[in-house]
């Protein structure tokens, strides 16, 4: 996925001389070639996220498309008011690239974890939110962010259980996309970002037990094709595996949609990252397991919730 990120950014920067890339001194072993190749347009602004968003605001007002890169806590929480004014309020052409979704930087500790940012950005109007779960989705999300004017939040996390997919044409990233299953199962699993790979593996584990679940990827949380999603979930049991805490997470939005539009469903269950902070060191995998959101944890959860079987 990291290769897809850098290659796509390079392609965008190479094809559009009005595009800039700013980093707040992050992107080790990733962004260096871009900083070297385009020194005027790719700038390490220093460890100063608030200023980075301000600079992006100035560049965007001068007609530039600006990508800003940092770890998620620093590019959301640290400079939230700048994001509010320059992206949400002014609707400028600024694209935030946040890396480290969930527990990607697990051992670094909870200051580097990103489990609340979906709620933070969802609370700000007019910012598209995309969460690639595979290299293919990474490419599509970045290309979409360049094609469409206005602010984007590109939320990136490295999955514990990555899987390859063919470079299929994704016409519209706002469409929920079937990525595992037949499309006619009674049980639906929805996921995105770094949880997509674990959900994919969980569906495979269930298949081994003759339990069939259709997994859909939500690479774009805003905009999202609600009509299509509502059709997919109609009369189904729905599981939502979300790499974010439940407060402000997308599961909340889905529940509100179901209730307010009276969508007939069998049930809606979810797994979210815990709402408090880990006080211990742990790898991405270790902390995912502690949340019961590793493939076996998801599979066991669905066996109980969908098939009434306790493992």
């Amino acid at each position: 996925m990291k290769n897809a990120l850098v290659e796509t950014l390079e392609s965008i920067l190479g094809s559009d001389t009005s595009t800039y890339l700013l980093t707040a001194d992050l992107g080790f072993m990733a962004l260096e070639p871009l900083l070297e190749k385009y020194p005027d347009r790719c700038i390490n602004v220093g460890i100063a996220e608030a200023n980075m968003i301000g600079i992006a605001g100035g560049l965007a007002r001068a007609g530039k498309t600006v990508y800003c890169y940092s770890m998620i806590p620093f590019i959301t929480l640290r400079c939230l008011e700048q994001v509010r004014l320059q992206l949400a309020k002014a609707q400028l052409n600024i694209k935030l690239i946040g890396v480290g979704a969930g527990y990607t930087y697990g051992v670094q500790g909870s200051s580097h974890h990103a489990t609340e940012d979906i709620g933070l950005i969802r609370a700000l109007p007019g910012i598209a939110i995309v969460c690639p779960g595979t290299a293919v989705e990474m490419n599509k999300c970045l290309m979409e962010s360049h094609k469409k004017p206005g602010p984007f939040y590109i939320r990136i996390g490295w999955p514990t259980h990555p899987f390859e997919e063919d470079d299929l044409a994704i016409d519209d990233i706002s469409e929920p996309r079937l990525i595992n299953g037949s499309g006619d199962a009674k049980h639906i699993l929805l996921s995105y970002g770094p949880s997509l790979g674990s959900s994919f593996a969980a569906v495979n584990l269930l298949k081994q037990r003759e339990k069939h679940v259709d997994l859909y990827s939500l690479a774009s949380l805003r905009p999202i094709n609600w009509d299509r999603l509502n059709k997919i979930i109609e009369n189904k049991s729905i599981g939502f595996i979300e790499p974010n805490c439940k407060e402000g997470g997308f599961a909340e939005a889905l529940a509100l949609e179901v209730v307010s539009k009276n969508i007939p469903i069998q049930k809606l269950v979810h797994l979210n990252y815990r709402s408090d902070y880990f006080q211990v060191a742990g790898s991405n995998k270790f902390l995912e397991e502690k949340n019961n959101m590793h493939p076996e944890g998801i599979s066991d959860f669905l066996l109980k919730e969908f098939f009434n079987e306790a493992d």
Partner: protein
Amino acid sequence: MNFYNAPANSSTALRQVIVSLAAKAGTGHISSALSMADILSVLFFETMSFHDGRLKDHFVLSKGHGSLGLYSVLYLKGLLKKEDLLDYHKNGSKMTTFPGEPFFNGLDFSSGSLGHGPGVACGLAIAARNDKTEKNIYCLMSDGECQEGSIWEAALFAGHHQLSNLHFIIDFNRLQAIAPIKDVLNLENLAEKWVSFGWDAEYVDGHDRTSLMKALSKKSVSKPRILIAKTVKGKGVSFMENSIKWHYLPIKDEFRDLAFKELGL
């Protein structure tokens, strides 16, 4: 009602419009606008470039609470219609205390939240330099605003990148919202602080138009420039000068009459 009777390009006219508008709207933040009136008048009538009624340079008002001054100078310059000016603070109008989006002609960015303008000005400066334009970027800040950390992030960046098309002006009136600056977080040796960040810094009398014009016309070869304009908060209305309470208070009744009289209205 005539808001002013002095020549439009004078500081007196700007102060007359500021106080007239504030009195009509019953709004505060008057003394902050009065302290920067000479700076704004010189910037808009003497320093910045215009073409076909549009600003060619860029202007960022970082001390958004001075918007009374900004709206007033835009009106005097012919960039804001009188009917729009009269909408100030009216329900449903775009004339909020802190100028928002969409932008007014003559304004690139303004914010009520202090500390946001300098970063935006840096971005405009980078774009202007890379695009090989002759544009200058002017950013007007308050002195108390220098207590925001983001100011110094931008100061470091501009100094490092030698943004010589960048001109900051600090309205150094020594009073912040509820106390004198020296009693809150002292900002003495302010020029030295900026110089140590790689800037050319100069103190100037913020009410002397000639000094302001001269200082604003200078350009460094490889450094951003900052003018620390020594001003008096509430300048031009005697009972407001150097008075903390007039940061927020609206002007009414006998105070309004007295202010009008002192300004020649």
